[in-house]
């Protein structure tokens, strides 16, 4: 019997109860603050859910502190400085491929792909190295207010998507209203949802509908008439895309074409927005008095819907995403906090991440890692990187800033299919294989008591898997590490960098085969 067969029979022989410790089903904790000092498991859980996989030393450094204290720090500053530019391409003009000859057109499109790949690699790198919640929350917003890189027969220009990224990052903790206003006149969004074609007399309803349905209230809070009137309010905003188009506000920014704006009175959610005269039809006035106004109306006339909808989105993304199992009372409580804070997003995230509910054991290990979390988290945890991470996340169905449709990634179980699960496994195998003996040594020595084989394996399992495993599984992993050697030999194996590296890679590979390796 070969080694794999031995392992296999060991696991096959396990009774179901032996595969994992029973996790509680009953979710008792609510929105009250979690005040206990954080344990290592708590800290790992917090970092897994609000960041891109923990580093062991960072998690260890949080032990004993309070959730409130830690979350405040990890959220980052409201006015976090913008990151350094990913490259000169972000300010390079692009020609309009429409109407160009085929060779030029192909060249333009190729350049966009190159830019998009550079942007995706740059952002994935930032995520891998971000010890805070900044990039994760920015990624959340980018998945909420959806734009797609490729859609229909066209593309969002990467330069515009980069600017949109900065806009989400800047707004991520500020007020929901100002974020909504910035998104509504965002160049990439105007192009993606047809706002740039929306003109008086021939309104395009696309964005006006999604602003409510997908971005702020969800279904059921407006009429088809509100969609039509909203579209009239939003007429006139234009995306500056190409070097040969007018660019009143600079490269890849939006601008206002007064002649295309519908100056008539509108009725939105039962509120009248008065008609304006030609003289009062400026970008500033329309942005404040009409675009800002309908966002304000949504945040007052539909305050409860907006706060609940956003709180649910945050909950599904960071806490638990099963659509059939939603704790309505908890979400209502968080939504109330959000409204009471006048829609300040920092308050929403803080209330969510410091709640006893967030730390409830019944939710540990119940979330499927998104492809981006899976890739960046593995890179972070293993201390290695993969070439072409942008291609890997695309192969796992999460290309950066390019969701399948305007509702974004469906999330939850759609992340794992017979198409993507094999890619996930192969990614883990590649990353583990790429760990040099020296990198294995670094990985091993970050655990306290790493010279004790049993304690070391327990530490790795705690670090790599979301919930404690049974003793039988732990023994199985120990045998994967030692490969027949007695555990008292481990210190001497450690003295041989090559032997230790091989054994660590075998342990990690074995752990990566478990279904709960995909969970967090």
């Amino acid at each position, binding site marked *: 019997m070969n080694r794999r067969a031995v392992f296999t029979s060991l696991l096959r022989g396990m009774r179901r109860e032996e595969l994992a410790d029973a996790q509680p089903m009953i979710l008792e904790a609510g929105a009250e603050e979690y005040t206990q000092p954080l344990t290592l498991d708590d800290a790992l859980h917090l970092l897994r859910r609000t960041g891109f996989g923990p580093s062991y030393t960072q998690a260890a450094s949080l032990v004993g502190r309070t959730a409130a204290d830690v979350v405040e720090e990890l959220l980052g500053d409201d006015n976090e400085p913008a990151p350094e530019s990913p490259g000169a391409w972000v300010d390079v003009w692009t020609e309009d491929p429409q109407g160009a000859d085929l060779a030029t057109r192909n060249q333009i499109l190729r350049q966009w792909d190159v830019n998009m790949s550079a942007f995706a690699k740059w952002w994935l790198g930032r995520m891998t190295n971000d010890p805070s919640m900044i990039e994760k929350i920015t990624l959340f917003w980018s998945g909420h207010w959806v734009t797609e890189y490729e859609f229909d027969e066209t593309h969002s220009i990467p330069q515009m998507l980069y600017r949109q990224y900065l806009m989400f990052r800047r707004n991520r903790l500020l007020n929901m209203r100002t974020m909504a206003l910035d998104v509504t006149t965002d160049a990439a969004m105007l192009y993606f949802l047809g706002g740039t074609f929306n003109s008086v007399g021939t309104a395009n309803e696309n964005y006006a509908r999604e602003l409510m349905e997908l971005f702020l209230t969800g*279904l059921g809070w407006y009429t088809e008439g509100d969609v039509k009137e909203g579209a009239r309010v939003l007429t006139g905003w234009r995306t500056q895309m190409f070097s040969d188009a007018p660019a009143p506000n600079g490269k890849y920014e939006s601008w206002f074409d007064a002649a295309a704006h519908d100056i008539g009175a509108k009725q939105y959610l039962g509120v009248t927005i008065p008609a304006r005269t030609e003289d009062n039809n400026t970008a500033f006035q329309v942005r404040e008095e009409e675009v800002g106004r309908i966002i304000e109306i949504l945040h007052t006339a539909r305050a409860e819907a907006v706060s609940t909808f956003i709180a649910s989105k945050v909950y599904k993304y960071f806490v638990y995403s099963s659509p059939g199992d939603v704790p309505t009372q908890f979400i209502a409580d968080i939504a109330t906090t959000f409204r009471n804070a006048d829609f300040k997003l920092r308050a929403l995230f803080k209330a969510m991440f410091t709640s006893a509910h967030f730390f409830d054991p019944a939710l540990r290990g119940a979330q499927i890692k998104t492809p981006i979390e899976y890739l960046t988290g593995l890179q972070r945890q293993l201390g290695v990187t993969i070439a072409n991470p942008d291609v890997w996340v695309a192969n796992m*169905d999460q290309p950066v800033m390019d969701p399948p449709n305007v509702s974004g990634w469906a999330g939850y179980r759609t992340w*794992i299919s017979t198409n993507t699960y094999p890619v996930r496994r192969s990614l883990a195998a590649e990353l583990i294989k790429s760990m040099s003996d020296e990198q294995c040594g670094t990985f091993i020595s970050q655990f306290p008591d790493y010279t004790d084989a049993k304690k070391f394996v327990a530490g790795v399992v705690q670090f790599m898997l979301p919930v404690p495993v049974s003793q039988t599984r732990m023994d199985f992993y120990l045998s994967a590490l030692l490969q027949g050697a007695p555990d008292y030999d481990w210190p001497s194996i450690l003295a041989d960098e090559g032997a230790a590296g091989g054994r660590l890679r075998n342990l990690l590979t074995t752990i990566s085969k478990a279904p709960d390796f995909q969970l967090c």
Partner: protein
Amino acid sequence: MKRRSFIATTAAATLGTQVLGNVPLHAYSPVRLMDTLADDDRVLIVIQMFGGNDGLNTIIPAEDPEYYKIRPNLSIPQAVAKKVLSRIYMHPALDPAGTYNLRMMMEDGRLAVIQGVGYENPNLSHFRSTDIWLSGFNSSDPNKRLIEGWLGRYWAHRIQGFPETLPDHPTAVQIGGTLSMLLQSQRGDIGIALTDPDAFFRLGQGLSPDMQPLPEDSRYSKEFNFVRLVAEQSDRYSTVIKDAFDSGKNTVKYADNGFVRQMQLVARLISGGLRSKVFMVYLGGFDTHVNQQNEDYEGLHPFLLESLSTGIGQFMQDALAQGFADRVVGMTVSEFGRRPYENGSWGTDHGAGSVQLVWGNGVKAGVYGNNPNLSDLTSNGDLRYQWDYRRVYADVMETWFGGTPDDTESVLEERLLPIGIFQRPSSVSDAFAGRQQLNIRAYPNPVTSTATLEWEQTVPASIKVELYAMDGRYVETVYKGRVQPGMMRLPVQPSQSGAYICNVVVNGVSNQVPIRVLH
């Protein structure tokens, strides 16, 4: 591979390149009963046209002046639309040159067009309406969570021992993407998502975690079991798919187009013996708010229609050549249609009610329902629906898959009358001799020189064979006389290319057999 790369919109690519004459076709036209077909052989292909297909620019109401008033830019002039069988006008993009296509399938009796499919209280959200279509539950109540597909529910209950034991072959295969809600059920996914059989085989083998499911007593264990099942399916089905892919073949040169390639893959898997019941393919981009079509009647929407027509046509031709055409039917689903009034961006906004296409040898070909009434719109300016979309599902379950009205009721939570879109095995055995519909075959079809009409004549009969053009004009009489019982084989040799109806009158009973001539 990302789904959209697979179905990449190679907009500039020319679709039809292959010629019909090279391929040995042996069509059975008109397609008749399939009472010998075991239920187990039957396959359904679901084509999801995401975004909301514009029904008014698919089947054109070219005789309705109102259409031209409300669509000043986007309408298809009567002279440009393709008139088919003197009955309907198709968008010209549905009739791409150089390939078997939907227009020909309509003429050959392989296409059913259902006008005005929709549901009560239409929901104009892509996502809710898609969920309504895929789940088979018409509920716009956001609190009613739609998380299972109607086919997922149907098959989860029909597969023995599911999900504890998996069937040898995946019950459903979706080409590309993550598994659609259509194929999900509370008891587990009934199928797999597949993009590239070779990659699936390379990566999928040996992925079984060799662990049993956990008791489902926590949120963690539920997700653990979900991932475990996908791992198990990846391991098991990667070999099955690879075997089918390797022993299967295509006999048609398919167009180089993402959607068409999906249809090609389905044909090859069926050809190779994959015993899946349901295939799902995807054609996105129908959310045509902007630049739906240009002045030359080309552009985004025509391209999508051309892709659709080419994909189905070439699949059908392949299936006919390989002899599995009788086993397969297909249907389109799209979450809604477009608003009759065009918007100002050379596009159309979300609307209710649209056209559904059901195709295959097993359909009762024809047009179901009337052209939409553009003078009687809803208060929101939308079309009124004529057929509840779930009635087609009832047809699929009760007639195609051999279920019962009880199945329909348990899956849709309501008893619905099938439209009658599929052929049923006939129970008429007492028709007196010589006065009944006959199973008359024409082969080859399409034909390049001489077609043969063939049937078994059981009693002496007087026979007349007339040739008509598809628009109903008389062309010639091919044969007239009396015959004795036996196998009848009559040659038919029309002098010009085109589609014809052979009207075979036997003892006064008319049998219509379409044939297509390609000189």
